[in-house]
């Protein structure tokens, strides 16, 4: 009995030590922007979950499609029901790592230009992607930023012909994450 209690008490401590280099957020930002001569569409998601392992350079994102907020509710409905089909595919995920990772010191302020490679799964389709971004360490805090392009057709997202002139073939995605210690 004593052994069990001891193990239960010590376990969370070891968990904390092992994860000393892991940083996470539950309120990361990912937004996307579609520009056409006819219409500009913008959506924001402030509930992105992400973990960055400063030791290994591994980076994980989980995004709930339903958490993308649009200005027009009708657009949000179309987005969920017709385009990304969020009932079938509720989450988008990214599993990857910083390319050529040499390690980063949380104690040293710095700005790093990085390339992140990994698997992006969206609308049930997984693709290997490689995108550029910056990681900034300032006062013990970590911020990751990236802007890149996603093509809906790469992920079998069908845009009906009727609205095809209102939705861009290339969507600009912005990622802005502030990480805290786990």
């Amino acid at each position, binding site marked *: 009995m004593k052994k069990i209690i001891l193990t239960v008490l010590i376990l969370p401590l070891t968990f904390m030590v092992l994860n000393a280099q892991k940083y996470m957020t*539950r*309120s990361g*930002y990912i937004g996307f922007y579609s520009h056409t001569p006819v219409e500009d569409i913008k959506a*924001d998601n*402030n*509930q992105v*979950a992400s973990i960055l392992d400063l030791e290994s350079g591994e980076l994980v994102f*989980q*995004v*709930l499609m*339903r*958490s993308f*907020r649009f200005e*027009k*509710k*009708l657009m949000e409905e179309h987005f969920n029901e017709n385009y990304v089909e969020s*009932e079938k595919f*509720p*989450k988008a995920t990214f599993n990857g790592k910083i390319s050529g990772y040499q390690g980063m010191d949380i104690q040293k302020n710095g700005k790093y230009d990085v390339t992140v490679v990994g698997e992006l799964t969206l609308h049930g389709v997984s693709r290997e992607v490689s995108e550029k971004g910056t990681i900034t360490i300032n006062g013990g805090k970590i911020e990751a930023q990236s802007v890149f392009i996603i093509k809906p057709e790469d992920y079998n997202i069908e845009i009906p012909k009727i609205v095809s002139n209102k939705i861009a073939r290339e969507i600009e995605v912005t990622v802005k994450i502030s990480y805290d210690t786990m």
Partner: protein
Amino acid sequence: MSKNVIFIGAAVVLVIVIAGVYFFNLGSSDLSNAEPDYHLTATELYSEFSSNETRASDTYIDKVIDVTGTVLAKETLKDNIVNISLDSGNPFGSVICTFSGNPEDVLSNIEIGDSLTIRGICSGMLMDVLMNNCVLVKSR
């Protein structure tokens, strides 16, 4: 004759504008006057998702839920967005409620440890159960 035409023209424009505003707001996401589909505690809601995410997703996603719980954390993001975390009783996750609109109103009313009821639309679960379009129902 021309005065009548102008008058009728103005009336038509007015009707169109009013109709436009009405239909635009029909899609408005303000839940203050909405009838909740469910009343749950944060503990209950989180527990349902963590024990059977598929079934909980079918039941609660896109539904208006009044969640009652204790404030664990409060975070103001840029863009006038406030995230309030309600204690789920589970150390690995909580119920995160996102408020948009005017964060000062929400901020001034809410403190960590407060017990309150938040109405929002359930979006699903990542590490936490996520709620959006949140409004405050009542503070105790």
